[in-house]
């Protein structure tokens, strides 16, 4: 305890829980997503390219996901790799994506990519818009 701190004399709230910070660390890619990305990259004839995931303002719930192929990482990007498949995320988007897992889901009706983002407070039915 510093002298400066004790001058404050405000009783702490014992029930306070630290919240409001991004949940989790890193970015996960599940097995089926790795397999699917490899296949798609091969079909695109760019086996060494990566996937860029970004978060943009707008959308029905305030924020929206965006995914696109990227040949290379940009200077300030964070790169995550699994089994040779790379995901690039710019630092600002990363703040909203920490702890997110990229999954590839297959059902009888349809199949596609989804982001399981623990930071999401509410998501929109359209699938790519959310809020934190």
């Amino acid at each position, binding site marked *: 305890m510093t002298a400066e701190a004790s001058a404050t004399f405000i009783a702490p709230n014992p029930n306070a829980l630290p919240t409001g910070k991004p949940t989790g660390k890193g970015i996960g890619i599940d097995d089926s997503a790795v397999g699917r990305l490899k296949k798609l990259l091969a079909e695109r004839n760019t086996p060494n390219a990566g996937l860029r995931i970004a978060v943009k303002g707008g959308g029905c719930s305030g924020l929206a996901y965006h*995914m696109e192929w*990227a040949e290379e990482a940009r200077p300030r990007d964070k790169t995550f790799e699994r089994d040779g498949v790379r995901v690039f995320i710019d630092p600002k988007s990363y703040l909203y994506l920490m702890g997110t897992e990229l999954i590839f*889901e297959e059902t009888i*009706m349809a199949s596609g990519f989804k982001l399981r983002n623990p930071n999401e407070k509410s998501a929109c*039915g359209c*699938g790519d818009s959310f809020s934190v």
Partner: protein
Amino acid sequence: MKGFLQIHDPLKPKGHAVGIDLGTTNSLVAAVINGKPTSLAADEGDERLLPSVVHYAQNGGVLVGKRAVELLATAPTDTIKSVKRFMGKSLGDLETKKLGAYQFVEGQGVVRFQVAGGQPVTPIEVSGEILRTLKRRAESAFAGKVEQAVITVPAYFDDGQRQATKDAGRLAGLEVLRLLNEPTAAALAYGLDKNAQGTFAVYDLGGGTFDISILELVDGVFQVKSVGGDSALGGDDFDRAIVQRALEAFGITEPSNTQIAQLLQAGRAAKERLTELPESSLTLDGRVFSFTRADFDGWIAPLLQKTGVAVRRALKDAGLTPADIKGVVLVGGSTRVPAVRSYVEALFGKPPLADIDPDQVVALGAAIQADLLTNADRQDEVLLLDVIPLSLGLETMGGVVEKLIHRNSAIPTAQGQVFTTFQDGQTGMDIHVVQGERELVQDSRSLARFRLSGIPSMPAGMGRVQVTFSIDADGILSVKAKEQTTGVEQAITVKPTHGLTDEEVEQMLLDSIEHGEDDMQRRQLAEQQVEATRVLADARKQLRENGDLLDPEERKRFELGVEALEALAQSTTDHASLKNAIHELDEQARPFVERIMNRAISKAAVGHTIESF
């Protein structure tokens, strides 16, 4: 079911991106051409509005638009109109069947229409036909591929209805860049997003529906504050008002269906002429019915008042008055009626924005959004200005941060909490405002500091100070501290983002994640140290004042316990062991506390006796 994400390919040449107003009565496609939002006409003529009507023929063919409208009377169950009202609905929704006389089939939770020429169709498929027609129309206008679109939806659409709209887009071979709220699209068409901030109203009076939306613009992002309206009120009611007066004038009490149809058509044309002329008339079977604009205004006045009620309710829901509205946007063909414009002007006390064709304004706004989203220069815009980037809080004992407003809170916002004093007789409180995600003050950014003095002298924990943090739409933070018994208060104002670069904000956030677990340990330790200090001070005070209640051996043991806790509080880094030690001393003190209580009670009893006799 939640939708899937698409992977975009920046290397692939992009087709044109369009904006689509998928309306209940009419639909429209627009695009930004040479920097100017423009609605796209059908190839067969200058008609821009596509009636949202789809006909399924016996031979499996599908007709959309005007040609489908012509078949409404002869093949009503094979010709679907106002399909938008069925989006995302199941037959279980009791209201669904009342929306039209179709041959409904239930399947997989969604409503389906049994139409001629094959399998039942879903509302998504019917909407898909409308979108496909608009896509083709745009492709012939561009003489090139159109693969991306922004589609507008009502602000009140729920997740299911939005998902259905998106699925309809995919079915039509369109990548849906975004679903945009209709009122937001109208506001974008007027460039209202170029304002720094403000609250706007969108007054949308169509053929059969009325919608009012209150939007708030905060740093370039529109938020829907409230919505309201009437799903059975529109220009069609204006036409019916004319028909009713014409029937009275002609002395027709039991009109035939043909007469009504003829009168509705003639009435609508007469209404449209009134927009330009002071007088208009219609004829039926050689007889003429003339009326003035003043007559007409009188007939529709009760209908306009209904919209006024909805507007006032929406304003009330948003906690606003008409004076708070910076601008009013008119949407929907019925807002061409001069009486509607003057009514809206009177309602809000300012002339509405009406320069853009109210039938096209939503599609034009969607086109602007589509252009923004596909324009390469703007791809890197990841602006998130409508939320606060870092949490704001204040310092409590032990250098622990108590967060009042959390990161990502939408602004403007306000949060309050009551804090108590920590020492007996404490008459001042230092309010230290800090910013950041870390748990301890030493790791946070110090924003401001002030002292609230004049707290009446009270035992620890009894002085109560209400601290309120409020952030306005410009991101300015005001902190107010108010002592609750005397009402004495003190306030300060700061700009939390002053002098912070984006990189610094990012670094602060990343640090908080990196140190997350460590921080929690340190916070809990600091909290236990504060608790130990409080318990030790209390124990020493009781030893001083009531030490005689303990026999020498008990006293010796208790004093040793106090010293042991003090030594541990200063040396340990483990919050759990400190917590245990505090608990142990508490247990040890229990018989002592009981005797102190008994003494206090007998003292009080004595006092009571003297007073009573």
